[in-house]
């Protein structure tokens, strides 16, 4: 079994076992053995068809960039909510909604999923659909200028810069 074929098994096993530890919350020997058996069975059954984990890059540096992405995401989420709260509480709701297109350079499925999720939770944008490398975004306060590069730099570039650290 070479490296490329055993990788999804190991990844699925690691994720399942981590989830087991978090859900059971105990480090007793019985629980650990049961967790190893269950997550091993799950990874053997499903890992071949799980193509979503292919894009992950696993190095020590990617872990740090994952943490930096999470921090950036949290800050953006809080900013988005204060922005939205201001819009909701003002008497005449100041919105000019439009649906625009954004180009992404993420290659893997997981990267596009996380990018779309991040776009949904950032200020005034909601990702509607993904077609190949274009993401349809509903923008609650669309400016006058509307071209693809401008939208991409405004909406997606910040997240892509952080996501590139641990995803293809």
């Amino acid at each position, binding site marked *: 079994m070479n490296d490329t074929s055993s990788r999804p098994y190991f990844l699925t096993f690691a994720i399942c076992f981590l989830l087991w530890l978090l859900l059971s919350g105990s480090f007793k020997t019985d629980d650990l053995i049961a967790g190893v058996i269950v997550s091993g069975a799950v990874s053997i059954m499903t890992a071949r068809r799980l193509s979503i984990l292919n894009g992950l890059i696993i190095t020590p540096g990617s872990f740090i960039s994952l943490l930096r992405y999470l921090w950036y995401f949290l800050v953006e989420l809080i900013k988005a909510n204060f922005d*939205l709260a201001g819009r909701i509480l003002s008497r005449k709701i100041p919105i000019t909604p439009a649906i625009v297109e954004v180009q992404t350079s993420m290659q893997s499925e997981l990267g596009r999923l996380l990018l779309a999720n991040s776009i949904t*939770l950032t200020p005034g944008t909601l990702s509607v659909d993904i077609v190949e490398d274009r993401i349809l975004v509903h923008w609650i306060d669309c400016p006058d200028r509307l071209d693809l590069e401008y939208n991409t730099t405004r909406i997606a570039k910040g997240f892509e810069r952080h996501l590139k650290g641990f995803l293809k």
Partner: protein
Amino acid sequence: MRLIADLFLLTGAMFIFLGALGLIRMPDVYNRIQAGTKAVTLGAMGILTGIGFMYPQWWYKLVVIMGFILLTSPVSSSAIARAFYIAGVKRWHSSNDATQKNKNTSKAQEKTALQKETS
């Protein structure tokens, strides 16, 4: 400890309240999805963090629930928005498109739509 927990709980409840208020006040379906998903998600995060400060021995399960909400709430709202978009639910004013935009007519339509909404 209790004070920090109360602060997080109150902030989370405020954001959930604002999300529901946006659900009432926003003029069309897509904007309602925006208000509903963002504010309610952050509000749930705040409440779970508050409970985590109140009962620090529960942190692992609260982390699982937080990660789950953070992953699935945008996915479900995106799925709903995509379904509406494909099924052809009309937007507030549809002159803003992916390729073109006419600011003046959209402003006019905005006013008429707002009057329709308030009347």
